[in-house]
């Protein structure tokens, strides 16, 4: 369970998060929607301590992580897998070594056989096989995105954090990644937070959606609740989602 209690974050005089309160029960998928520059990524970064909130509490399994030092944050970060917008693979390493990288670092007791089996398993989770010996630049961008997902889940995180996972992707890759977010979260029983612009996807796979505008939560609820919302920003997002659907 992750709970935000009145979380605020300022940069100088500019307050970016203005008292954020919400909860994500274990095993659920939460979408954080909002326009560009409205504090979504800042919110995600406060969970793993990449940014510290100015005030408020961030509880993970009942423990407030906001006041923790860098060193104390370590076990918290081990619980969390973060998927960035760019695949961020190591160019000079093979796909195998990219997926094995986190395991070698964090699970030093694993034998080579176990690592190899786990790499294979994680690649199959993202529907890839027989690419272990390739380098990132030898596979398509969509495949690189999937390898980055495999690498993230390889160290068995309980919490998955996605920062705009489908931004800038073509329609086919977008759908593939959205399906994987759902599949992985359910199969691995992770609690997943997805920062996104994509209302269509949120309606399809989220358990709960919060909509952020200028640092405040302006709407939240299940996909069914959101569809009925009269909040102006939500209405605009719904209109764009309908538009995207109509263009198919």
């Amino acid at each position, binding site marked *: 369970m992750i709970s935000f209690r009145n979380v605020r974050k300022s940069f100088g005089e500019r307050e970016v998060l203005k008292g954020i309160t919400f909860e994500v029960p274990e095993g659920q998928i939460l979408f954080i929607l*909002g*326009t*560009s*520059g409205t504090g979504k990524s800042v919110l995600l970064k406060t969970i793993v301590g990449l940014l510290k909130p100015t005030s408020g509490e961030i509880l993970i399994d009942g423990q407030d992580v906001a006041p923790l030092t860098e060193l104390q944050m370590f076990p918290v970060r081990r619980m969390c897998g973060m998927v960035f*917008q760019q695949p961020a693979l190591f160019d000079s390493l093979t796909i195998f070594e990219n997926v094995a990288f986190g395991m070698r670092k964090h699970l030093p007791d694993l034998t080579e056989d176990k690592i190899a089996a786990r790499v294979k398993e994680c690649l199959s989770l993202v529907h890839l096989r027989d690419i272990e010996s390739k380098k990132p630049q030898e596979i*398509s*961008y*969509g495949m690189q995105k999937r390898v980055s997902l495999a690498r993230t889940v390889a160290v068995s995180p309980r919490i998955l954090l996605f920062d*705009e996972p489908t*931004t*800038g*992707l*073509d*329609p*086919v*890759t*977008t*759908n*593939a990644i959205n*399906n994987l977010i759902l599949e992985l979260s359910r199969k691995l029983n992770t609690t997943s937070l997805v920062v996104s*612009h994509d*209302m269509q996807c949120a309606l399809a796979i989220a358990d709960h959606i919060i909509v952020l505008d200028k640092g405040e939560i302006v709407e939240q609820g299940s996909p069914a609740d959101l569809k009925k919302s009269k909040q102006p*920003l939500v209405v*605009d*997002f719904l209109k*764009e*989602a309908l*538009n*995207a659907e109509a*263009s*198919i």
Partner: protein
Amino acid sequence: MLALNDVTMSFGDNLVLDSVDLQVARGEALVLVGPSGNGKTVVLKLLAGLLKPSAGSVVVDDKDLHKILRREQEELLLKMGMLFQKNALFDSLKVGENIAFPLREKTSLSEAEIQERVVYFLEQVGIGHARDLYPDEISGGMQKRLGIARALALEPSIVLYDDPTAGLDPITSRRIADLILTLKEKNKSTLVAVTNDMARAYQLADRIAMVVDHEVIVTGDKTATAAHRDPRVRQFVRGQLDGPLTEAP
């Protein structure tokens, strides 16, 4: 008029385009779509004269871009404005100076005329208030708009946009695309844009072309594209997971 005639483009052993023909009429809006890594940006850079084809010709206003004198080439290229995917703004220059810079470099306008134009184009894209801020002090959407204002300040008759709404939310994206179209009408310019977002492609395009498998398939307007029979086009515009685009090579 803008054209690729029988253009082949390779980078070393990597063939990107194979004997491609493409025409863009004056005043037309052509949008290039297609899977990542298939060469959309390469087509745009060929049209902009930033890449020279391995074979074939690039024609701008009836002149072969790579068979004319350097000076003539520069004159032709001055008619073009380009918005890069990452905007390519000057971090160390204020918003207003980002627009003034190319005007000082490429025109003989007086400083007063330059400042007048800076104000005008910032107003056109709705960021007049940000003139004295630095690029990293404004939002991603505002940076895009600044990139567009800078591309347009030289009053190009041909404007090339590389993914003008990438990374922006759909509401901001629609607004940026509206702005691009308004400015196109006003300046009666020709537009070529690259995007992966079909909603935006349909909003912007008179004609759509898909860059895939070393080819450029002109699919036509919105209706024709949505009903196109090529299985690769069908899969792409519908975002289907199964089909020729996702088959293992």
